[in-house]
């Protein structure tokens, strides 16, 4: 097991460097420089040149990458020129909001998607199964931002039930329970949009995985040995069917972080996706790089953890 974990880690190292290198190359080839967005007419060319020099933006490419990587190892992700603050601090204030939104959606979609997938798999080709299959198709086909806008129009503007943007009522300064309720009200719509896609994909994967297991010989054997239906489902079917679901759920975490970009932008949720959109608009190189780095790290980590979980649950992986 230790050997497997180590092997998995070693594979991740070149991937990590590859990612940072590619993104750094990309960010550095962005047109314009971070100071041209400031539009300060009093800024002379000489002053601008000094600023570029000061921030090391005139160095050769590899030198800049090396310097940057060296700082990263010491936990310094750079300085955001647009927010006038350390990149790590800005990300720190935002990532919690994304994690909250993503976490709630993930829990909701797991709680709905997996049981629903199991129950339709057990009633294959029924009316419920057909209905749910179509629902899943709708869920994976509707553009997240379009869905978001429809919700804003319906519940935010026409019915005026829910706030349409942000995370708290501006200037309300609620504390304690009132604050939590305020956030929850703001979260209903973005969480619904984010969950819809995941419910659909969890349900489809669970359904096909359970159906796969149902066709196995050992299920027929268990049935013919008179195993009661309840324990057949819980001990024989679920145990085997849920193994691949680990991968599906864990793969959804990074795609949630990335997919949240559109949802967060539509609902102006102050998370990392919305921050990233702003950073690209502001040409805030260091911030973009920092966000991509943090998200890539999270993705890598989640993938490693998922692989390890998989190996713990399914010994066949460990020894292959």
């Amino acid at each position, binding site marked *: 097991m230790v050997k497997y974990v180590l092997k998995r880690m070693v594979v991740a190292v070149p991937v990590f460097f590859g*990612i940072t290198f590619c993104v750094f190359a*990309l*960010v550095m080839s962005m047109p314009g420089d971070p100071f041209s967005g400031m539009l300060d007419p009093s800024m002379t060319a000489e002053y601008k040149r000094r600023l570029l020099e000061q921030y090391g933006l005139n160095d050769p490419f590899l030198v800049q990458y090396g310097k940057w990587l060296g700082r990263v190892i010491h936990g310094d992700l750079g300085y955001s020129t647009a927010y006038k603050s350390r990149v790590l601090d800005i990300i720190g204030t935002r990532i919690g909001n994304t994690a909250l939104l993503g976490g709630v959606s993930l829990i909701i979609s797991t709680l709905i998607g997996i049981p629903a997938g199991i129950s339709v798999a057990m009633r294959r080709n029924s009316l419920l199964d057909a209905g749910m299959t179509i629902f899943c198709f709708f869920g994976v086909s509707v553009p997240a931002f*379009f869905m978001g*806008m429809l919700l804003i129009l319906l519940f935010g503007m026409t019915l005026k039930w829910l706030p349409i943007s942000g995370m708290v009522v501006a200037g309300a300064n609620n504390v304690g329970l009132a604050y939590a309720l305020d956030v929850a009200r703001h979260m209903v719509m973005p969480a619904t949009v984010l969950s819809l896609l995941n419910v659909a994909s969890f349900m489809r994967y669970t359904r096909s995985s359970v159906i796969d297991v149902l*066709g196995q010989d050992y299920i027929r054997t268990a049935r013919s040995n008179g195993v009661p239906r309840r324990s057949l489902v819980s001990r024989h079917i679920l145990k085997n069917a849920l193994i691949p679901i680990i991968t599906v759920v864990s793969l959804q975490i990074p795609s949630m972080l990335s997919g949240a970009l*559109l949802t967060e932008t539509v609902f102006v949720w102050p998370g990392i996706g919305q921050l990233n959109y702003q950073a690209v608009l502001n040409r805030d190189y260091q911030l973009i790089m920092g966000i991509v780095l943090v998200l890539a790290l999270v993705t890598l980590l989640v993938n490693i953890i998922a692989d390890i979980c998989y190996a713990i649950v399914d010994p066949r992986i460990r020894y292959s």
Partner: protein
Amino acid sequence: MTQGISGASVTRKARASREVYSPGRIAWRKLRNNKLAMFGMIFLALLIIAVLLAPVLATHDRDAIEMFSMDKPPTEKFILGTDSIGRDVYSRLLYGGQISLGVGLAAVLLQVTIGVTLGAIAGYIGGAVDAIIMRLVDMILCFPFYVIAISMAAVFGGSAINIVIIIGVLSWTGVCRIVRAQVLSLRSREFTEAARALGLTPLEIIRSHMLPNCVSPIVVNATLGMASAILTEAGLSFLGMGVTPPQPSWGNMLSAAQNITALQHYWWQWLPPGLLVFMTVLCVNFLGDGMRDALDPRTRQAKE
């Protein structure tokens, strides 16, 4: 053993009815019986025809601006009203469809080309080359998709061609893995050795003896990939990082809804493109899923 018996009985049955079904025909018959897939196929066919006939069907010029008809609701003259600078929404929808569907198709072609090439190289050569290509796949799968996509769009600038490149470069990994696995497993088979002994070049072996074995998963993957490519184009254009106006695409027409007034009062500006993206993606998914069921021999058995 079981295979032999069922194979023999199939041949006998086929002989009895004097008709032999090729795998392709069996798949087509299964697809034809799938109502959702057929619905998707017909809808897409009609849509493609409508979009290709845009110059004939459009009632106005794509970019023609009616100075005094901004934000006008649907009338006889403007079937779906006008947008914020007085252009005909219906005509722009047709031309926008050319871009949205074209981007989806081109992006899929690009991702299949990259995926098949790298997958075949990785599987056939193996060793260090394989390791490098597989690390590349791991790397791309770690990229947070929209995050990297909007950064790339910001660097290269938004245009239909750049969107195709961005989607293609970021989504070839699925096809690559399929082809690599297939080539890897066929590399040590007898017929490959025989082909090599006959003096066929690796390119010929891969092209005519290995790739035909993975056509079905590639086709399914490409179809479903087209659905996500259309969604991605819409998303990027909606954010203003995709196809740039005045060239219309369903995505950038949708961004009209970012304006609160338009969202509340001018439904004809954003609802039709939104519904078209949704319906197109839905139908492509119907078709892709139907093709997976039709082409996968495992579901063929399970459904009987």
